[in-house]
């Protein structure tokens, strides 16, 4: 593994995201001018490496320069992953109090009191200022923490007309019960860069030596900024390997290799579930015993992939899907580094779906389509 450090955010390294910045700027401007803003929560959803945290960094850097009465606060839920939820929420409440000039000593004996005192303090601030709360890694955080966070911090804040909440997240979306956080929120997909010129602009700022390879990098990365940087800096094969490792960064080190193997085994499928997992693992490990796996064993694999937000249920696909860019990058790596294994997985998938199409009359058409997809993938033109 190459000891390459990922670049830290700096305003001059930031490219693109004009629409997202404009959206937030317009909302802040409306509040600054005393106009009501109906949707005061914005949720940016996107896969790992797409630039969610950098977008928050950039908003934090540029907006206070444009709006004098704006107070920007930042919370990163990744910092609370292993903490007790009640302690974590108390810590966040306390931090917001301190950062807005409120009491530094503990606000109360319990969350209810702390929440109330914070809101009393913030009401005074909000008479003169607008508050912009930037929250990173929200949906992929501990779901035992989020109900407390909602009841004692986000819910009360979301009701305040001069508070704007920007959240980022990936994977499963948490079902907030506060209308302002879900039903009346703006949900925006933060997509990878769509045009090769955008990848080129990024490489100019961050890896200019790779500029001549910008079109190829864009095709491989599908515009994912993290992948652009690593492919541009390390070259294709090493870069893809490192991208996969970076994608796995949220997974504890002792599980990383195993999770990577699961992702490699499943990356050829458009969708998977507990019925398909044993077949693909049997092929990946060349070990028939996986075919005897129980539903519960397969479920552990699925749960682990969902836990780390690499997969989610997709109704249209009729199964769990891997994050499209993650899937593409892992499949590209496998295709290049272990082409035989990739072909074996494609063939196994084709055989499985052909068998299902034969056995299950009601769902035949769906499985026939999947079998045809894998058949096409194995044709020389697709490889």
């Amino acid at each position, binding site marked *: 593994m190459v000891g390459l450090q990922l670049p830290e955010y700096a305003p001059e390294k930031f490219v693109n995201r004009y629409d997202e910045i404009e959206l937030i700027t317009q909302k802040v401007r409306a509040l600054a001018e005393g106009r009501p803003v109906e949707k005061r929560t914005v949720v940016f959803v996107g896969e790992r490496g797409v630039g969610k945290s950098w977008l928050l960094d950039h908003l934090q850097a540029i907006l206070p320069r444009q709006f004098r009465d704006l107070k920007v606060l930042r919370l990163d839920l990744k910092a609370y992953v292993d903490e007790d939820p009640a302690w974590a929420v108390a810590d966040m409440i306390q931090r917001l109090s301190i950062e807005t000039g409120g009491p530094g000593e503990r606000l109360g004996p*319990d969350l*209810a*009191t702390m*929440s*109330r005192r914070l*809101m009393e303090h913030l009401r005074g601030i909000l008479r003169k200022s607008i508050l912009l709360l930037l929250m990173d890694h929200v949906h992929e955080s501990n*779901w035992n923490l989020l109900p407390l966070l*909602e*009841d*004692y911090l986000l*819910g*009360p804040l*979301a*009701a*305040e007309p001069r508070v704007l909440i920007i959240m980022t997240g990936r*994977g*499963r*979306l*948490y*079902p*907030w*019960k*506060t*209308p302002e956080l879900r*039903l*009346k929120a703006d949900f925006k997909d933060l997509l990878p860069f769509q045009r090769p010129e955008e990848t080129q602009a990024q490489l100019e700022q961050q890896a200019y030596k790779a500029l001549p390879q910008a079109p190829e990098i864009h095709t491989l990365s599908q515009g994912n900024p993290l992948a652009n940087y690593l492919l541009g800096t390390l070259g294709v094969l090493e870069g893809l390997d490192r991208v996969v490792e970076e994608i796995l960064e949220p997974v504890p080190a002792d599980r990383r290799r195993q999770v990577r193997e699961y992702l490699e085994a499943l990356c050829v499928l458009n969708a998977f*579930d*507990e*019925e398909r997992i044993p077949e693909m693992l049997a092929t990946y490990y060349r070990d028939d015993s996986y075919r005897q796996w129980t*539903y519960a064993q397969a*479920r552990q694999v*699925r*749960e682990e992939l*969902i836990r780390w937000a690499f997969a*989610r*249920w997709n*109704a249209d696909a*009729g*199964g*769990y899907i891997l994050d499209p860019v993650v899937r593409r990058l892992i499949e590209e790596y496998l295709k290049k580094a272990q082409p035989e294994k990739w072909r074996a997985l494609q063939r196994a998938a084709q055989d499985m779906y052909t068998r*299902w199409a034969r*056995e*299950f*009359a*009601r*769902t035949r058409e*769906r*499985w026939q389509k999947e079998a045809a997809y894998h058949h096409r993938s194995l044709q020389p033109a697709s490889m």
Partner: protein
Amino acid sequence: MPDSSGVPEWLRWAGFRFDPFGQLDAAADPHLNEYLVGHEVFARVWGDGISWVFAPAGGGKTALRISVMQACWVGQETNRPFPIPYVPPFLAWGHARPSEEEHLAAIARAGTIALFLTMAYRPHWFFRMDQPERQHTVEMFRWNLPGPLSVYLERCRLRGDPQVLSDVLDPAFVLRHSPNPEVLRDWCDAVEAASRETPTPSPLERWSLLKELLLETIGFPALYILLDGLDGAPETISDPTAVADCLAPLLRLTEGWAKEKVFLKAFLPGEMQISLVERFPDLFGPAYISTIHWTPDLLAEVVRRRVYVATEGAFGSLDALASPALRDLETLLAKTVIPPTPREMLVLTRRMLEEHVRISGSNGLIREEDVENAIRWYLSTVRYHDKV
């Protein structure tokens, strides 16, 4: 009553954190707001304005009303609207033409019950009042609660849990995060200490004073009067004119209230829509009306959303627990139910799971025959034949 069907065990095996199909009574379901579908109707109802929502029985009116209440109760503070659930008692009593005064007395009572219960969970609202404000609040309790205040306070002291109050005053009232028993007992003592004998004013005055207390003293930004329960009495549905007669005195007040930040939001049986619109054309303008139409797609979403919430987002469809022989399971069920309402959809879904457990036990994937058996049962039941 414990569920002996085996379905809860199967749901646990399948990775559900709780049973999202067991609770057909929306009012008692603490997760209701999380699995709300039909967002556009909620979005129209939520906010400072008059709203009329029409839907058939079992079509989600009470679920929507409870969702609005739960949304009002988020947080510990008074920066959200205060909800007053109002189920007019008159039709159930066979008294079809209540006066304005009778409505106001009933609303003052409903509003006071809501305030009393909410304060038991949020005693800090009371503790931060000065003495005259406390006395004024306690007067409201004494004038409008259905029983003697001292009896409620005594029960509360003994149990140390505000739920003892909702059990007797409004079982549909579900608020989380009770204060600790000591704080609750302090609140009971403080309420009792602020009590004084004063003559009970007229309903009009009581309602006026309650509005003032909620909007000015406590400082809620608005009051939402949530009118519901009109299809609870059988005669209501068969005679829309009687309901219009019953509501007429109340409806005449709504526009004036809106100027005072008091908004009526009514959840009404679909059968009444034509009659009310004809009789009160100015009030029932299209901008205020939302009609809940249940399509098979939306009904399928009712089940999917419940699956998503109960599995904490792990999956969003029973397809994840079905054999490869089955896909789009919810749509298959949704196309069967008549009338197309969430209640019917949940009945059929639940039955499918019961069929599965009956044949296969509390584990294993849902199979074609489980679905076919459930549909066969549904089509043979009175609930189906009565409605075709």
